[in-house]
Protein backbone atom coordinates (compact mmCIF):
# COMPACT_ATOMS: atom_id res chain seq x y z
CA UNK A 1 0.00 0.00 0.00
CA UNK A 2 1.39 3.31 -0.98
CA UNK A 3 0.40 6.63 0.38
CA UNK A 4 0.40 10.05 -1.19
CA UNK A 5 -1.34 13.25 -0.61
CA UNK A 6 -3.67 14.89 -3.07
CA UNK A 7 -4.61 18.48 -3.40
CA UNK A 8 -7.89 19.32 -1.77
CA UNK A 9 -9.10 20.72 -5.05
CA UNK A 10 -9.40 17.23 -6.40
CA UNK A 11 -11.46 16.01 -3.51
CA UNK A 12 -14.92 16.33 -5.12
CA UNK A 13 -13.67 14.65 -8.28
CA UNK A 14 -12.20 11.82 -6.30
CA UNK A 15 -15.42 11.42 -4.38
CA UNK A 16 -17.36 10.92 -7.56
CA UNK A 17 -14.79 8.60 -9.06
CA UNK A 18 -14.60 6.66 -5.85
CA UNK A 19 -18.35 6.04 -5.93
CA UNK A 20 -18.36 4.59 -9.47
CA UNK A 21 -15.33 2.57 -8.79
CA UNK A 22 -16.82 1.07 -5.68
CA UNK A 23 -20.05 0.15 -7.39
CA UNK A 24 -18.14 -1.61 -10.19
CA UNK A 25 -16.07 -3.51 -7.70
CA UNK A 26 -19.04 -4.65 -5.65
CA UNK A 27 -20.61 -6.16 -8.75
CA UNK A 28 -17.59 -8.36 -9.22
CA UNK A 29 -17.60 -9.35 -5.49
CA UNK A 30 -14.04 -8.47 -5.02
CA UNK A 31 -12.64 -8.56 -1.46
CA UNK A 32 -12.80 -4.92 -0.90
CA UNK A 33 -13.78 -2.98 2.19
CA UNK A 34 -17.49 -2.54 2.71
CA UNK A 35 -19.10 0.77 1.97
CA UNK A 36 -21.07 2.68 4.46
CA UNK A 37 -24.17 4.05 2.84
CA UNK A 38 -24.98 6.42 5.68
CA UNK A 39 -24.23 9.91 4.65
CA UNK A 40 -22.81 11.75 7.58
CA UNK A 41 -24.37 15.07 8.45
CA UNK A 42 -22.26 18.13 8.14
CA UNK A 43 -21.52 19.74 11.44
CA UNK A 44 -22.83 23.11 12.29
CA UNK A 45 -25.70 22.85 9.85
CA UNK A 46 -23.44 23.74 6.99
CA UNK A 47 -24.98 23.08 3.65
CA UNK A 48 -23.00 21.17 1.10
CA UNK A 49 -22.77 23.43 -1.84
CA UNK A 50 -21.84 26.94 -2.76
CA UNK A 51 -23.83 30.04 -2.32
CA UNK A 52 -24.83 30.48 -5.91
CA UNK A 53 -24.31 27.18 -7.64
CA UNK A 54 -26.22 24.78 -5.42
CA UNK A 55 -28.44 23.64 -8.19
CA UNK A 56 -25.50 22.60 -10.27
CA UNK A 57 -24.01 20.34 -7.64
CA UNK A 58 -24.69 16.62 -7.69
CA UNK A 59 -27.27 15.33 -5.26
CA UNK A 60 -26.13 14.11 -1.92
CA UNK A 61 -26.90 10.47 -2.80
CA UNK A 62 -24.18 10.59 -5.39
CA UNK A 63 -21.64 11.77 -2.91
CA UNK A 64 -20.75 8.52 -1.33
CA UNK A 65 -18.00 8.48 1.15
CA UNK A 66 -14.93 6.69 -0.15
CA UNK A 67 -13.66 3.62 1.61
CA UNK A 68 -10.67 3.89 3.76
CA UNK A 69 -7.55 3.25 1.77
CA UNK A 70 -9.22 3.28 -1.63
CA UNK A 71 -7.22 5.15 -4.20
CA UNK A 72 -4.59 5.68 -1.65
CA UNK A 73 -6.61 8.18 0.32
CA UNK A 74 -5.27 8.41 3.78
CA UNK A 75 -7.45 7.64 6.74
CA UNK A 76 -6.44 10.94 8.16
CA UNK A 77 -7.34 12.89 5.05
CA UNK A 78 -10.22 15.33 4.74
CA UNK A 79 -13.72 13.96 4.76
CA UNK A 80 -17.17 15.39 4.45
CA UNK A 81 -17.67 14.86 8.13
CA UNK A 82 -14.64 16.96 8.87
CA UNK A 83 -16.47 20.15 8.08
CA UNK A 84 -15.58 22.73 5.49
CA UNK A 85 -11.90 23.00 4.94
CA UNK A 86 -10.45 26.44 4.83
CA UNK A 87 -9.16 26.85 1.34
CA UNK A 88 -7.65 30.26 1.66
CA UNK A 89 -7.22 32.55 4.56
CA UNK A 90 -9.12 35.72 3.96
CA UNK A 91 -11.74 34.12 1.74
CA UNK A 92 -13.66 32.23 4.34
CA UNK A 93 -16.90 33.75 3.12
CA UNK A 94 -16.77 31.41 0.17
CA UNK A 95 -18.07 27.92 0.64
CA UNK A 96 -15.80 24.99 0.01
CA UNK A 97 -17.99 23.66 -2.76
CA UNK A 98 -18.53 26.93 -4.51
CA UNK A 99 -18.15 26.31 -8.20
CA UNK A 100 -16.45 29.63 -8.57
CA UNK A 101 -13.45 27.93 -7.05
CA UNK A 102 -13.16 25.87 -10.21
CA UNK A 103 -13.37 28.79 -12.56
CA UNK A 104 -10.40 29.99 -14.45
CA UNK A 105 -8.14 32.17 -12.35
CA UNK A 106 -10.14 31.12 -9.34
CA UNK A 107 -8.92 31.37 -5.84
CA UNK A 108 -8.12 27.69 -5.68
CA UNK A 109 -5.41 28.15 -8.24
CA UNK A 110 -3.86 30.80 -6.07
CA UNK A 111 -3.76 28.56 -3.05
CA UNK A 112 -0.08 27.88 -3.28
CA UNK A 113 0.86 31.43 -4.02
CA UNK A 114 -1.08 32.68 -1.03
CA UNK A 115 1.55 31.17 1.12
CA UNK A 116 4.16 33.22 -0.68
CA UNK A 117 2.98 36.44 0.98
CA UNK A 118 5.67 37.14 3.49
CA UNK A 119 7.05 40.11 5.27
CA UNK A 120 8.60 42.80 3.12
CA UNK A 121 12.12 42.08 2.13
CA UNK A 122 14.47 44.25 4.15
CA UNK A 123 16.40 46.73 2.07
CA UNK A 124 19.67 45.13 2.99
CA UNK A 125 18.44 41.78 1.75
CA UNK A 126 17.54 42.98 -1.72
CA UNK A 127 19.72 41.62 -4.48
CA UNK A 128 20.37 43.13 -7.86
CA UNK A 129 18.78 41.53 -10.85
CA UNK A 130 21.55 39.46 -12.47
CA UNK A 131 23.05 41.15 -15.48
CA UNK A 132 22.56 38.17 -17.79
CA UNK A 133 18.85 38.15 -17.02
CA UNK A 134 18.64 41.85 -17.68
CA UNK A 135 20.39 41.34 -20.99
CA UNK A 136 17.70 38.86 -21.95
CA UNK A 137 15.18 41.66 -21.87
CA UNK A 138 17.26 43.61 -24.35
CA UNK A 139 16.70 40.97 -26.98
CA UNK A 140 13.02 40.47 -26.21
CA UNK A 141 10.63 41.12 -29.10
CA UNK A 142 8.96 44.50 -29.10
CA UNK A 143 5.54 42.89 -29.03
CA UNK A 144 6.32 40.87 -25.91
CA UNK A 145 4.79 43.05 -23.24
CA UNK A 146 5.24 40.78 -20.28
CA UNK A 147 8.94 40.60 -19.58
CA UNK A 148 9.43 37.70 -17.27
CA UNK A 149 12.81 36.25 -18.14
CA UNK A 150 12.97 34.27 -14.92
CA UNK A 151 9.52 32.73 -15.45
CA UNK A 152 8.33 33.91 -12.07
CA UNK A 153 4.68 34.25 -12.99
CA UNK A 154 2.80 30.93 -13.05
CA UNK A 155 1.54 29.74 -16.37
CA UNK A 156 -2.14 30.57 -16.10
CA UNK A 157 -1.73 34.08 -14.70
CA UNK A 158 0.99 34.59 -17.28
CA UNK A 159 -1.39 33.79 -20.10
CA UNK A 160 -3.94 36.12 -18.57
CA UNK A 161 -1.45 38.92 -18.30
CA UNK A 162 -0.13 38.42 -21.80
CA UNK A 163 -3.65 38.57 -23.18
CA UNK A 164 -4.39 41.68 -21.18
CA UNK A 165 -1.21 43.43 -22.27
CA UNK A 166 -1.73 42.49 -25.90
CA UNK A 167 -5.25 43.81 -25.76
CA UNK A 168 -3.95 46.96 -24.14
CA UNK A 169 -1.29 47.42 -26.82
CA UNK A 170 -3.85 46.98 -29.54
CA UNK A 171 -6.28 49.47 -28.04
CA UNK A 172 -4.25 52.07 -26.14
CA UNK A 173 -1.90 54.73 -27.39
CA UNK A 174 0.43 54.21 -24.45
CA UNK A 175 1.77 50.70 -24.51
CA UNK A 176 2.33 48.92 -21.28
CA UNK A 177 5.34 46.73 -20.60
CA UNK A 178 5.70 44.78 -17.41
CA UNK A 179 9.06 43.58 -16.17
CA UNK A 180 8.64 41.12 -13.33
CA UNK A 181 11.32 40.71 -10.70
CA UNK A 182 11.53 38.22 -7.91
CA UNK A 183 10.53 39.27 -4.41
CA UNK A 184 14.07 39.79 -3.22
CA UNK A 185 15.31 41.40 -6.41
CA UNK A 186 15.77 44.99 -7.45
CA UNK A 187 17.15 46.70 -10.47
CA UNK A 188 20.85 47.53 -10.27
CA UNK A 189 21.58 51.17 -9.57
CA UNK A 190 22.94 52.02 -12.99
CA UNK A 191 20.43 50.07 -15.00
CA UNK A 192 19.54 51.55 -18.36
CA UNK A 193 16.20 50.24 -19.47
CA UNK A 194 16.27 52.11 -22.74
CA UNK A 195 17.75 49.05 -24.42
CA UNK A 196 14.87 46.78 -23.50
CA UNK A 197 13.29 45.15 -26.55
CA UNK A 198 16.02 46.50 -28.83
CA UNK A 199 15.20 50.04 -27.73
CA UNK A 200 11.60 49.80 -28.82
CA UNK A 201 10.46 51.48 -25.62
CA UNK A 202 12.23 54.70 -26.50
CA UNK A 203 10.58 55.01 -29.89
CA UNK A 204 6.97 54.97 -28.84
CA UNK A 205 4.64 56.00 -26.07
CA UNK A 206 5.34 53.48 -23.41
CA UNK A 207 4.94 52.86 -19.74
CA UNK A 208 7.29 50.27 -18.31
CA UNK A 209 6.47 48.97 -14.86
CA UNK A 210 9.16 47.11 -12.99
CA UNK A 211 7.27 44.97 -10.58
CA UNK A 212 8.82 42.90 -7.75
CA UNK A 213 6.53 39.97 -7.26
CA UNK A 214 4.71 40.17 -3.95
CA UNK A 215 6.02 43.66 -3.12
CA UNK A 216 4.01 46.13 -5.16
CA UNK A 217 5.13 49.06 -3.04
CA UNK A 218 8.56 48.66 -4.61
CA UNK A 219 7.20 48.89 -8.14
CA UNK A 220 8.93 51.40 -10.36
CA UNK A 221 7.31 53.23 -13.23
CA UNK A 222 9.07 54.54 -16.31
CA UNK A 223 7.39 56.43 -19.09
CA UNK A 224 8.73 57.58 -22.41
CA UNK A 225 9.45 61.22 -22.99
CA UNK A 226 6.46 61.48 -25.29
CA UNK A 227 4.31 60.83 -22.23
CA UNK A 228 6.37 62.58 -19.62
CA UNK A 229 6.50 65.94 -21.37
CA UNK A 230 2.74 66.25 -21.72
CA UNK A 231 1.58 64.88 -18.40
CA UNK A 232 2.25 66.66 -15.10
CA UNK A 233 4.52 64.80 -12.74
CA UNK A 234 1.84 64.96 -10.07
CA UNK A 235 -0.58 63.06 -12.32
CA UNK A 236 2.00 60.40 -13.02
CA UNK A 237 2.82 60.12 -9.35
CA UNK A 238 -0.87 59.79 -8.60
CA UNK A 239 -1.14 57.05 -11.20
CA UNK A 240 1.71 55.13 -9.64
CA UNK A 241 0.30 55.57 -6.17
CA UNK A 242 -3.13 54.44 -7.29
CA UNK A 243 -1.77 51.27 -8.88
CA UNK A 244 0.22 50.39 -5.79
CA UNK A 245 -2.76 51.02 -3.57
CA UNK A 246 -4.96 48.85 -5.74
CA UNK A 247 -2.45 46.04 -5.75
CA UNK A 248 -2.27 46.18 -1.99
CA UNK A 249 -5.98 45.44 -1.83
CA UNK A 250 -5.04 41.81 -2.45
CA UNK A 251 -2.88 39.71 -0.21
CA UNK A 252 -1.90 37.14 -2.76
CA UNK A 253 1.15 37.91 -4.90
CA UNK A 254 -0.40 36.77 -8.17
CA UNK A 255 -3.61 38.66 -7.48
CA UNK A 256 -1.62 41.71 -6.57
CA UNK A 257 0.15 41.54 -9.91
CA UNK A 258 -3.14 41.07 -11.71
CA UNK A 259 -4.77 44.00 -9.94
CA UNK A 260 -1.70 46.11 -10.47
CA UNK A 261 -1.64 45.45 -14.20
CA UNK A 262 -5.35 45.96 -14.70
CA UNK A 263 -5.26 49.21 -12.76
CA UNK A 264 -2.23 50.48 -14.60
CA UNK A 265 -3.79 49.60 -17.93
CA UNK A 266 -6.96 51.44 -16.97
CA UNK A 267 -5.08 54.51 -15.80
CA UNK A 268 -3.06 54.58 -19.00
CA UNK A 269 -6.27 54.59 -20.98
CA UNK A 270 -7.36 57.63 -18.95
CA UNK A 271 -3.99 59.22 -19.38
CA UNK A 272 -3.88 59.06 -23.11
CA UNK A 273 -6.76 61.51 -23.32
CA UNK A 274 -4.41 64.24 -22.17
CA UNK A 275 -1.85 63.48 -24.85
CA UNK A 276 -1.71 65.26 -28.19
CA UNK A 277 -1.64 63.38 -31.45
CA UNK A 278 1.57 61.40 -31.89
CA UNK A 279 4.30 62.97 -33.98
CA UNK A 280 5.44 60.65 -36.75
CA UNK A 281 9.14 59.75 -36.98
CA UNK A 282 9.92 61.27 -33.62
CA UNK A 283 13.47 60.50 -32.48
CA UNK A 284 14.08 57.98 -29.72
CA UNK A 285 14.10 59.47 -26.24
CA UNK A 286 15.10 57.94 -22.92
CA UNK A 287 12.56 56.74 -20.42
CA UNK A 288 11.67 58.86 -17.40
CA UNK A 289 10.99 57.35 -14.04
CA UNK A 290 7.88 58.32 -12.13
CA UNK A 291 8.04 58.47 -8.36
CA UNK A 292 5.01 57.23 -6.56
CA UNK A 293 3.79 59.26 -3.61
CA UNK A 294 2.91 56.11 -1.82
CA UNK A 295 5.73 55.42 0.59
CA UNK A 296 3.78 56.70 3.58
CA UNK A 297 0.79 54.53 2.75
CA UNK A 298 2.75 51.47 1.89
CA UNK A 299 4.97 51.91 4.84
CA UNK A 300 1.95 52.10 7.05
CA UNK A 301 0.59 48.94 5.46
CA UNK A 302 3.58 46.81 5.03
CA UNK A 303 6.37 48.40 6.76
CA UNK A 304 9.93 47.48 6.51
CA UNK A 305 11.78 48.96 3.53
CA UNK A 306 10.11 52.33 3.65
CA UNK A 307 9.70 52.25 7.37
CA UNK A 308 13.46 52.13 7.69
CA UNK A 309 13.78 55.30 5.67
CA UNK A 310 10.80 56.91 7.39
CA UNK A 311 12.11 55.87 10.75
CA UNK A 312 15.47 57.37 9.88
CA UNK A 313 13.88 60.63 8.84
CA UNK A 314 11.68 60.67 11.91
CA UNK A 315 14.63 59.86 14.12
CA UNK A 316 16.65 62.67 12.57
CA UNK A 317 13.71 65.03 12.96
CA UNK A 318 13.10 64.05 16.54
CA UNK A 319 16.80 64.35 17.28
CA UNK A 320 16.92 67.78 15.68
CA UNK A 321 13.82 68.88 17.52
CA UNK A 322 15.11 67.50 20.78
CA UNK A 323 18.43 69.23 20.28
CA UNK A 324 16.66 72.49 19.54
CA UNK A 325 14.52 72.20 22.63
CA UNK A 326 17.53 71.27 24.73
CA UNK A 327 19.52 74.24 23.42
CA UNK A 328 16.57 76.55 23.99
CA UNK A 329 16.13 75.30 27.53
CA UNK A 330 19.85 75.56 28.15
CA UNK A 331 19.90 79.14 26.97
CA UNK A 332 16.83 79.99 28.97
CA UNK A 333 18.23 78.34 32.08
CA UNK A 334 21.47 80.22 31.53
CA UNK A 335 19.57 83.46 31.19
CA UNK A 336 17.57 82.68 34.30
CA UNK A 337 20.73 81.86 36.20
CA UNK A 338 22.26 85.06 34.94
CA UNK A 339 19.16 86.93 35.99
CA UNK A 340 19.44 85.42 39.44
CA UNK A 341 23.09 86.16 39.87
CA UNK A 342 23.39 89.35 37.83
CA UNK A 343 21.87 92.77 37.80
CA UNK A 344 21.72 95.13 34.89
CA UNK A 345 23.43 98.43 35.44
CA UNK A 346 22.56 101.33 33.21
CA UNK A 347 24.89 104.16 32.36
CA UNK A 348 24.29 107.44 34.18
CA UNK A 349 24.51 110.23 31.63
CA UNK A 350 24.70 113.90 32.45
CA UNK A 351 21.63 115.73 31.18
CA UNK A 352 20.94 119.43 31.37
CA UNK A 353 17.55 119.90 33.07
CA UNK A 354 14.63 121.30 31.12
CA UNK A 355 11.45 123.03 32.14
CA UNK A 356 12.68 123.24 35.72
CA UNK A 357 12.20 119.54 36.29
CA UNK A 358 14.61 118.05 38.81
CA UNK A 359 14.38 114.47 37.51
CA UNK A 360 12.59 114.66 34.21
CA UNK A 361 12.11 117.16 31.42
CA UNK A 362 8.91 115.42 30.30
CA UNK A 363 10.53 113.07 27.78
CA UNK A 364 8.28 110.29 26.67
CA UNK A 365 5.45 109.49 24.33
CA UNK A 366 1.69 109.98 24.29
CA UNK A 367 -1.05 108.06 22.53
CA UNK A 368 -4.76 108.57 22.25
CA UNK A 369 -6.52 105.25 21.81
CA UNK A 370 -9.91 106.79 21.20
CA UNK A 371 -11.79 105.26 18.20
Amino acid sequence: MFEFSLPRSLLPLLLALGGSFARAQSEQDLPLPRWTHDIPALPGGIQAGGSQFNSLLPSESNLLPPPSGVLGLRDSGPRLADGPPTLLHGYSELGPHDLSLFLHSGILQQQTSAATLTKPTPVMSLRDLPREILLQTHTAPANEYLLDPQTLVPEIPRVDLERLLEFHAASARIRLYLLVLDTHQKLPESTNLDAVAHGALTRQRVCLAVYPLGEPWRARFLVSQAVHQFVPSASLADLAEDCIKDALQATDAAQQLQRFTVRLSTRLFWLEKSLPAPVPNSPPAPLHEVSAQAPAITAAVLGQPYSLVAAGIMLAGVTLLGTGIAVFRLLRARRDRQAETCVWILPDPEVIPRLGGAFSGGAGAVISFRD
Partner: protein
Amino acid sequence: MKCPHCFSEVTSGHSHCSQCGFSSAAIRAYLGSDWVRLERITDNSQRLSLRDTRHLETVLDDFERRFPQCFLAAYLGALPGTLTVSDLGFWLINHGAFHTHQISRRNDFGIVLVVDPLRQSACFTVGYALEQMLPESMLGGILERLRQPLKREEFSAVIETALRRIEKALRARASAEPRTSEQPPTIVGDASDLGLQSLRLPQRVSSQVSRHV
Protein backbone atom coordinates in the same frame (compact mmCIF):
# COMPACT_ATOMS: atom_id res chain seq x y z
CA MET B 1 12.59 117.13 23.34
CA LYS B 2 8.96 118.15 23.47
CA CYS B 3 6.89 120.05 25.93
CA PRO B 4 4.66 117.61 27.80
CA HIS B 5 1.78 120.04 27.62
CA CYS B 6 1.75 121.39 24.07
CA PHE B 7 4.28 118.98 22.46
CA SER B 8 6.28 121.83 20.91
CA GLU B 9 10.06 121.49 20.80
CA VAL B 10 11.89 122.45 23.98
CA THR B 11 15.65 122.90 24.01
CA SER B 12 17.82 121.86 26.91
CA GLY B 13 18.35 124.46 29.60
CA HIS B 14 15.08 126.29 29.03
CA SER B 15 13.10 126.69 32.22
CA HIS B 16 9.74 126.92 30.49
CA CYS B 17 8.08 126.15 27.18
CA SER B 18 8.35 129.08 24.83
CA GLN B 19 5.01 128.15 23.22
CA CYS B 20 2.68 127.50 26.15
CA GLY B 21 4.75 128.62 29.14
CA PHE B 22 4.61 125.18 30.73
CA SER B 23 7.20 124.62 33.43
CA SER B 24 7.76 122.74 36.63
CA ALA B 25 6.70 125.81 38.58
CA ALA B 26 3.46 126.05 36.59
CA ILE B 27 2.48 122.47 37.24
CA ARG B 28 3.50 122.82 40.88
CA ALA B 29 1.12 125.74 41.16
CA TYR B 30 -1.63 123.49 39.91
CA LEU B 31 -0.89 120.23 41.74
CA GLY B 32 1.19 121.46 44.65
CA SER B 33 4.82 121.19 45.53
CA ASP B 34 4.54 118.43 48.10
CA TRP B 35 6.05 115.08 47.45
CA VAL B 36 3.55 112.34 46.96
CA ARG B 37 3.98 108.69 47.64
CA LEU B 38 4.39 106.95 44.30
CA GLU B 39 3.36 103.31 44.38
CA ARG B 40 4.10 100.79 41.67
CA ILE B 41 0.40 100.64 40.86
CA THR B 42 -2.00 103.47 41.58
CA ASP B 43 -5.41 102.41 40.33
CA ASN B 44 -7.55 105.44 41.03
CA SER B 45 -10.19 104.35 38.52
CA GLN B 46 -10.61 100.86 39.96
CA ARG B 47 -9.86 99.16 36.66
CA LEU B 48 -7.61 96.47 38.07
CA SER B 49 -8.68 93.51 40.14
CA LEU B 50 -6.79 92.56 43.25
CA ARG B 51 -5.43 89.57 41.43
CA ASP B 52 -4.14 91.75 38.60
CA THR B 53 -2.62 94.18 41.02
CA ARG B 54 -0.79 91.45 42.93
CA HIS B 55 0.45 89.92 39.72
CA LEU B 56 1.72 93.28 38.52
CA GLU B 57 3.42 93.88 41.84
CA THR B 58 5.34 90.66 41.35
CA VAL B 59 6.27 91.51 37.77
CA LEU B 60 7.39 95.00 38.69
CA ASP B 61 9.31 93.74 41.68
CA ASP B 62 11.23 91.33 39.45
CA PHE B 63 12.01 94.19 37.12
CA GLU B 64 13.34 96.26 39.98
CA ARG B 65 15.52 93.35 41.14
CA ARG B 66 17.06 93.02 37.69
CA PHE B 67 17.46 96.79 37.25
CA PRO B 68 18.36 98.15 40.69
CA GLN B 69 18.46 101.74 39.42
CA CYS B 70 15.03 101.75 37.77
CA PHE B 71 11.39 101.59 38.60
CA LEU B 72 8.14 101.79 36.75
CA ALA B 73 5.05 103.31 38.30
CA ALA B 74 1.65 103.10 36.69
CA TYR B 75 -1.19 105.48 37.37
CA LEU B 76 -4.74 104.70 36.19
CA GLY B 77 -7.29 107.40 36.71
CA ALA B 78 -9.55 109.96 35.14
CA LEU B 79 -8.01 113.40 34.93
CA PRO B 80 -9.65 116.82 34.79
CA GLY B 81 -9.86 118.51 31.42
CA THR B 82 -7.16 121.01 32.28
CA LEU B 83 -4.61 118.30 33.02
CA THR B 84 -3.16 116.03 30.39
CA VAL B 85 -1.67 112.61 31.03
CA SER B 86 1.77 113.91 30.15
CA ASP B 87 1.34 116.85 32.57
CA LEU B 88 0.68 114.40 35.38
CA GLY B 89 3.54 112.15 34.25
CA PHE B 90 5.93 115.09 34.36
CA TRP B 91 4.76 116.11 37.82
CA LEU B 92 4.78 112.56 39.23
CA ILE B 93 8.31 111.81 38.18
CA ASN B 94 9.49 115.10 39.62
CA HIS B 95 7.41 115.02 42.81
CA GLY B 96 6.80 111.37 43.45
CA ALA B 97 8.61 109.52 46.20
CA PHE B 98 8.78 106.03 44.86
CA HIS B 99 7.88 103.48 47.45
CA THR B 100 11.32 102.08 48.13
CA HIS B 101 13.96 102.55 50.74
CA GLN B 102 16.78 102.05 48.27
CA ILE B 103 18.62 105.30 47.80
CA SER B 104 20.11 104.10 44.56
CA ARG B 105 16.69 104.12 42.91
CA ARG B 106 16.54 107.67 41.74
CA ASN B 107 13.65 109.32 39.98
CA ASP B 108 15.73 110.18 36.94
CA PHE B 109 15.82 106.41 36.29
CA GLY B 110 12.07 106.24 36.74
CA ILE B 111 9.37 105.47 34.21
CA VAL B 112 5.82 106.61 34.77
CA LEU B 113 2.88 105.30 32.82
CA VAL B 114 -0.26 107.39 33.10
CA VAL B 115 -3.50 106.11 31.60
CA ASP B 116 -6.75 108.07 31.54
CA PRO B 117 -9.45 105.50 30.72
CA LEU B 118 -12.14 108.15 30.25
CA ARG B 119 -10.21 110.39 27.92
CA GLN B 120 -8.65 107.28 26.38
CA SER B 121 -5.12 108.56 26.39
CA ALA B 122 -1.90 107.15 27.77
CA CYS B 123 1.65 108.38 28.11
CA PHE B 124 5.09 107.29 29.17
CA THR B 125 7.30 109.78 30.95
CA VAL B 126 10.88 108.89 31.69
CA GLY B 127 13.59 110.53 33.78
CA TYR B 128 16.62 112.23 32.41
CA ALA B 129 18.83 109.16 32.72
CA LEU B 130 16.59 107.07 30.48
CA GLU B 131 15.96 109.64 27.76
CA GLN B 132 18.68 108.28 25.50
CA MET B 133 17.89 104.63 26.17
CA LEU B 134 14.15 104.97 25.74
CA PRO B 135 13.67 107.56 23.03
CA GLU B 136 10.29 108.92 22.10
CA SER B 137 10.08 106.82 18.94
CA MET B 138 10.57 103.60 20.87
CA LEU B 139 8.08 104.48 23.57
CA GLY B 140 5.61 105.62 20.93
CA GLY B 141 6.02 102.29 19.17
CA ILE B 142 5.35 100.41 22.38
CA LEU B 143 2.21 102.42 23.00
CA GLU B 144 1.08 101.92 19.43
CA ARG B 145 1.34 98.15 19.82
CA LEU B 146 -0.68 98.39 22.99
CA ARG B 147 -3.47 100.31 21.33
CA GLN B 148 -5.88 97.37 21.12
CA PRO B 149 -5.37 96.16 24.71
CA LEU B 150 -5.80 99.76 25.83
CA LYS B 151 -9.08 99.96 23.96
CA ARG B 152 -10.21 96.74 25.58
CA GLU B 153 -9.12 98.17 28.94
CA GLU B 154 -6.82 95.22 29.53
CA PHE B 155 -4.59 97.41 31.65
CA SER B 156 -2.84 94.60 33.45
CA ALA B 157 -1.69 93.16 30.16
CA VAL B 158 -0.76 96.63 28.95
CA ILE B 159 1.50 97.29 31.91
CA GLU B 160 3.14 93.86 31.78
CA THR B 161 3.74 93.96 28.03
CA ALA B 162 5.09 97.48 28.19
CA LEU B 163 7.47 96.45 30.94
CA ARG B 164 8.76 93.47 28.92
CA ARG B 165 9.48 95.67 25.94
CA ILE B 166 11.12 98.36 28.01
CA GLU B 167 13.24 95.77 29.79
CA LYS B 168 14.37 94.36 26.46
CA ALA B 169 15.38 97.84 25.29
CA LEU B 170 17.21 98.58 28.51
CA ARG B 171 19.16 95.32 28.44
CA ALA B 172 20.62 96.33 25.11
CA ARG B 173 22.19 99.36 26.76
CA ALA B 174 22.95 97.92 30.17
CA SER B 175 25.87 95.93 31.42
CA ALA B 176 25.42 92.78 33.46
CA GLU B 177 27.15 92.79 36.78
CA PRO B 178 27.18 90.14 39.47
CA ARG B 179 24.74 90.64 42.23
CA THR B 180 26.49 91.76 45.35
CA SER B 181 26.53 89.17 48.05
CA GLU B 182 24.60 89.99 51.17
CA GLN B 183 26.68 91.57 53.90
CA PRO B 184 25.68 92.50 57.45
CA PRO B 185 25.55 96.25 58.09
CA THR B 186 28.76 97.49 59.65
CA ILE B 187 27.30 100.63 61.15
CA VAL B 188 23.75 100.96 62.39
CA GLY B 189 22.91 104.67 62.72
CA ASP B 190 19.18 104.12 62.92
CA ALA B 191 16.48 101.68 61.86
CA SER B 192 16.77 102.67 58.21
CA ASP B 193 20.11 100.88 58.08
CA LEU B 194 18.18 97.69 58.84
CA GLY B 195 15.73 98.33 56.04
CA LEU B 196 13.07 99.82 58.26
CA GLN B 197 11.43 103.00 57.09
CA SER B 198 10.74 105.76 59.54
CA LEU B 199 7.35 107.43 59.65
CA ARG B 200 6.45 111.01 60.52
CA LEU B 201 6.13 111.34 64.24
CA PRO B 202 2.81 112.83 65.31
CA GLN B 203 4.31 113.71 68.67
CA ARG B 204 6.68 116.19 67.06
CA VAL B 205 3.78 118.01 65.39
CA SER B 206 1.76 118.02 68.58
CA SER B 207 4.73 119.29 70.59
CA GLN B 208 5.24 122.13 68.12
CA VAL B 209 1.55 122.92 68.31
CA SER B 210 1.65 122.86 72.09
CA ARG B 211 4.73 125.07 72.07
CA HIS B 212 2.98 127.62 69.84
CA VAL B 213 0.02 127.42 72.06
